[in-house]
């Protein structure tokens, strides 16, 4: 009897072992999947230098899933779903979820120091030394990395207003139905 049980276990062990070899997935797709959920603002609020490094850290278990304020609670939930773990509230240590914004340079104050250009993670600021700079609003991810380096505080974050292009049909008020 004991022999039979041991045999069964042994067979299952062999099957498991073989499937681990046969069904091995090359590369590390989980990092790509995590990165696909992250908003790609490249803001570094999660304490990692960009979205890819954060995704790698999550995959390696070095970072929690609730460190991305731009992704918001929805992002946390999507990550929890993907990784099969419990969702949790956004960690306030890394910042709070804010309305989507773009950086705007107050052009009268700009001295053309190019510091913001060097800070921008997506090359969304145009300009050259001693010349006024400007933000390409469409390319700006709202990461705020350009705000602090500005020596004359001429960059402000402006929330994107609701207009015809981003308007959404509102969700019905959920009653007890």
């Amino acid at each position, binding site marked *: 009897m004991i022999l039979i049980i041991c045999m069964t276990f042994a067979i299952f062990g062999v099957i498991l072992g073989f499937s681990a070899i046969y069904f091995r997935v090359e590369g590390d797709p989980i990092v790509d999947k995590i*990165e696909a959920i*992250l*908003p*790609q*603002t*490249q803001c570094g609020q999660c304490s990692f230098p*960009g*979205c890819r490094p954060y995704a790698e850290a999550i995959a390696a278990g070095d970072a929690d899933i609730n460190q991305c304020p731009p992704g918001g609670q929805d992002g946390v939930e999507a990550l929890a779903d993907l990784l099969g773990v419990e969702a949790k509230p956004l960690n306030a240590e890394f910042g709070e979820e804010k309305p989507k914004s773009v950086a705007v340079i107050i052009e009268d104050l700009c001295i053309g120091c190019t510091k913001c250009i060097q800070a921008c*993670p*997506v*090359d*969304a600021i145009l300009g050259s030394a001693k010349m006024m700079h400007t933000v390409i609003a469409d*390319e700006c*991810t709202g990461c705020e990395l350009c705000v602090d380096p500005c020596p004359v505080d001429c960059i402000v974050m402006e929330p994107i207003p*609701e*207009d*015809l*292009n*981003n*308007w*959404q*049909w*509102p*969700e*019905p008020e*959920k*009653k*007890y*139905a």
Partner: protein
Amino acid sequence: MLKTWRFHGGLHLPAHKHLSAHRPIVNAELPNQLVYPLQQRPGVQLNPTVATGESVLRGQIIADSDHFLATPIHAASSGTVKAIEDRIIPHPSGLSDQCIIIDTDGRDEALASEPIADYRLEPASSLRSKIRQAGIVGLGGAAFPTSIKLNPGPQRHIDTLILNGAECEPYITCDNVLMQAEPDAIVQGALILMHALQVGNGIIAVEDHMTEAFEALSVAIEQTRDLRLTAVKIPALYPTGGEKQLIRVVTGKETPSGGIPADVGVICQNVGTAAAVYNAICRGLPLTERVVTVTGQGVKQQQNMRARIGTPISNLINQCGGYQDSVERLIMGGPMMGFALPEDDIPIVKATNCILAAADSEVAGSKETRPCIRCGDCAKACPVDLLPQQLYWYSRAGNLEKCKEFSLFDCIECGCCEVVCPSQIPLVQYYRSAKSKTIAKAKEAEKAAIAKRRHDFLLERKAREQAERAERSRRKKEALAKLKAAETATEGAE
């Protein structure tokens, strides 16, 4: 009598058409001000071609764009451009957007018209460009550019033109009265469209209760002695006027999901659009006016009005004797798919077929929503054969993936499911919200992909620059070393 087919579901709705169906078309007065929103369709923004203070004539283009889905807007009367500024536009959001405002001068002077003597001698491309320049879009409500529809591409073989006179939404009668008043213009328009498409089969479809319109069209067709064109009566069943539903009823063909009617060899145009095409080609008149049904128990005199596009709704209501005290809601379009407006100082646009001033007794108040009891009435009513109840669960839970799997984007938002729902759940609103969210999510994903590309490129550039810098300093060092070596060599030689 041609054979007709049927589609799944649909509803027999109370028609309310008697309010306005048997009244002559009244010409609306020239308003003091005309307002033209510059956003034509989602994402298609026109650029003004006139400046503030400039004077314009009737029929003059005041805005246009290079976007392939754009058509120009024309001033509907002479006057001066007062301003180009934000105004509340006719849109379900109630948001404001850029509009051209024209103060009319009362003289109503027109630009000289350039009719085409014989359209049969013109190639399709020139008819299309004439139709585009006349600013013609689908007048049934969707406002899709007619010239684009007339150009289905060489890979699609078109065999049938259908003119849509099946005004299936309750209350609306503007197409019905137009077919009675101007059957010749519609029939001529149909022949022009058939010529432009090179098709040999034209069908004008009207609902079976439109006896007068059917007679008028039949007489007009007979007079042309053109056997390629027929008028056909189809059963009144909402939403039979929906493009894909109408094609099914008239030809038995099913337009594929995500496809266009041209995929099954059919082009569908509204009867009003055909009349506008006739006016543009044979009379040289751009689209500056249309017939609008002003109706509902909330307005004193219900009637159909020939109104200039850009006329404020308040202006039309005044000419109908004003509101009744019981007026509760102002709807642009019909009661099934139209949207409520926040105020009446909003202009009519090319797509406006109806202004419904509804009394409180005519419209749904705040509904007492109950839980879904899975009765399945919604699925029975759905003209697309969806499972509205499943879509409700998934859209309510925010499960957009599942919504897509259950064909959310095949939903035509006709509202049948919601009207029959005993639990009175705002189903359509759930679907619209889920569609909006899906679209927004796709846009965000696209933006994220661009940001990622730009970021990766930046990293690569920085790495390259660093490598180049390293290379340069290495070379410099080498050169220096060589120089030094040479110097020591010469020193040694000395």
